[in-house]
């Protein structure tokens, strides 16, 4: 029995390593095959994926809610922009500062969030998102007011021979890969399980020794940190921040993207990020007059077809494929639970190039659980 599980584990690891390697290769090749604008779009998908992975920790795995993550995103973006603009620090220095600042900000907000639940928490976090842009406009001396700040983008070193968009892509790819790995590490540990347990049954979790306040506030803090890191990357990639880029609509878009991508799924954030990045422009093409309506309708359509999000759809499809392939093999349970690598390179839309990274950053062999609730 035990040796069999070991063998299963090993093949799973092997398959994961193979998929990761393949995905990494594709991700490395992508910027050389696409036009600069498309590379830029892919870079932004990665940026949003980091923010969504953070939001997923809080909402998908933590069972809390935030309609204010755009504010943490903005805080990270402005931290980076101000450091670059006023203090002329290098780009790299802005990342840990933005991360730490947003972590602490999240910790600060996590404490009152302990006393709030559901709609109340949604409302309080939303007010954070609503209140931040005007504040940024007011603090003109530091933030540049409504005009915003224009900062330098990271420049490719001469030895690399890369163009600016390609360099940005690789930098963001590296940071987001690490970020997604950290999120995965957290979830595959004692603290991640504690978070899931709190989501599923608070009092039982507490009886098992889980300190609710600690894990809930830390979920908030980590989540805010990821949003802040994403914001920092945003500043690097765009080279410009202004209060209007971070209106409360951003917060709502992030949450919508997460739900569409798949709550509590490890690779839902990547799918959701692609949705957030590409669908508004598709909507624009479909209807010049009311892209918002088309966007909304598309969200509804996705939720109708895939109530557990695109990730749920993907893993269900993958599960069906695996089942058919495995036939009546004894290992059927594990092969169903584990989304085979192909399942990630799924669905719809004119965004083939996205899928490779989704495999790369997506820990495929991760614990089964969730998607299917």
């Amino acid at each position, binding site marked *: 029995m035990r040796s069999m599980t070991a063998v299963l584990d090993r093949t799973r690891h092997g398959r994961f390593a193979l998929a990761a390697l393949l995905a990494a290769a594709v991700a490395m090749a992508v910027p050389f095959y696409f036009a600069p604008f498309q590379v830029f779009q892919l870079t932004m998908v990665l940026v949003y994926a980091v923010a969504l992975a953070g939001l997923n920790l809080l909402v998908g795995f933590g069972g809390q809610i935030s309609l204010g993550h755009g504010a943490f995103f903005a805080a990270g973006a402005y931290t980076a922009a101000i450091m670059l603009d006023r203090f002329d620090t290098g780009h790299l220095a802005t990342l840990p500062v933005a991360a730490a600042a947003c972590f602490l900000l999240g910790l600060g907000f996590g404490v009152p969030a302990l006393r709030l639940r559901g709609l109340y928490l949604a409302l309080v976090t939303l007010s954070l998102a609503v209140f931040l842009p005007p504040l940024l406009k007011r603090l003109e001396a530091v933030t540049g007011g409504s005009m915003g700040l224009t900062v330098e983008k990271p420049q490719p070193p001469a030895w690399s021979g890369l163009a600016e968009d390609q360099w940005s892509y690789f930098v963001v790819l590296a940071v987001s890969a690490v970020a997604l790995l950290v999120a995965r*590490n957290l979830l595959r540990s004692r603290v991640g*399980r504690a978070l899931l347990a709190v989501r*599923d049954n608070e009092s039982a979790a*507490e009886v*098992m*020794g889980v*300190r*609710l306040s600690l894990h809930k506030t830390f979920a908030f803090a980590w989540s805010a940190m990821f949003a802040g890191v994403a914001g920092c990357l945003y500043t690097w990639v765009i080279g410009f921040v202004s209060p209007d880029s971070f209106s409360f609509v951003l917060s709502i878009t992030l949450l919508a993207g997460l739900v569409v991508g798949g709550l509590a799924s490890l690779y839902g954030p990547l799918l959701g990020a692609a949705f957030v990045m590409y669908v508004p422009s598709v909507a624009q093409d479909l209807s010049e007059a009311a892209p918002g309506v088309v966007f909304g309708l598309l969200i509804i359509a996705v939720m109708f077809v895939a109530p557990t999000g695109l990730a749920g759809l993907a893993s269900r499809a993958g599960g069906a494929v695996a089942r058919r392939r495995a036939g009546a093999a004894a290992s059927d349970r594990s092969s169903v639970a584990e989304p085979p690598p192909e399942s990630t390179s799924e669905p719809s839309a004119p965004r083939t190039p996205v899928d490779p990274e989704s495999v790369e950053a997506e820990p495929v062999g991760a614990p089964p659980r969730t998607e299917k609730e």
Partner: protein
Amino acid sequence: MLTVDGITVRFGGITALDGVAFTVEPGTAVGLIGPNGAGKTTLFNCLTRRCTPDAGTVSFDGVDLLALAPHAVAECGIARTFQNLGLFPRLTVRENVMVGAHSRGRTGHLAAALRLPRVRREEAELRDRADELLRRLGLEDLADHPASGLPFGTLKRVELARALAVRPRLLLLDEPVNGLSHGEVGQFADLVRSVRRDFDVTLVVVEHHMGFVMGLCDKVVCLDFGRKIAEGPPEDIQRDPVVIEAYLGVAA
């Protein structure tokens, strides 16, 4: 080992517990019986810090339980199951059991984020221990199954496995055989007896199934309307007119 003294709990107008006192000796199994609404679950809630009594003391091996934070009770060596199952439905059976060992782990947030070598080691250990418990309770084939959607009797066993993962010295079972079929009750009784021996736990069991209580317990405490109305060996309690009266009073 456990001394409960003068516990009183009021919810608004009703007094759920009224000056309840009893002791549990190490290694024994104590049955807690009483009609519906007698306050049995409330008493468990006091022992696990789910609710704070208005008066009274609880001491466990010399530790004042009421002074502990709710999450610290597990670390003390007290585990419980819930009357209506308190599992984590979206976690797998194995993960449920691993959460049970939460208080035995040390990994903090930073170490987990970096997945330091000691985190890996601890994960492997917790996993092995969980698998061992699952094997012990005949659940090994369900390890990767989500805890929802399994038969009720199986879930009861999963919950027992999770409680054992706490490594308790005192195990509180709230209606463990409630909702089980006749055959399952017998099996579960055997399981509890063997677990009690192998894991060396002291038991407090709330149960309406008299056969189960009488076969398992060394002592029985009977509550009615929050008051202790009888305490003694199972044979005596079964014949005690006050106890019979309390049960019949409810039935009538």
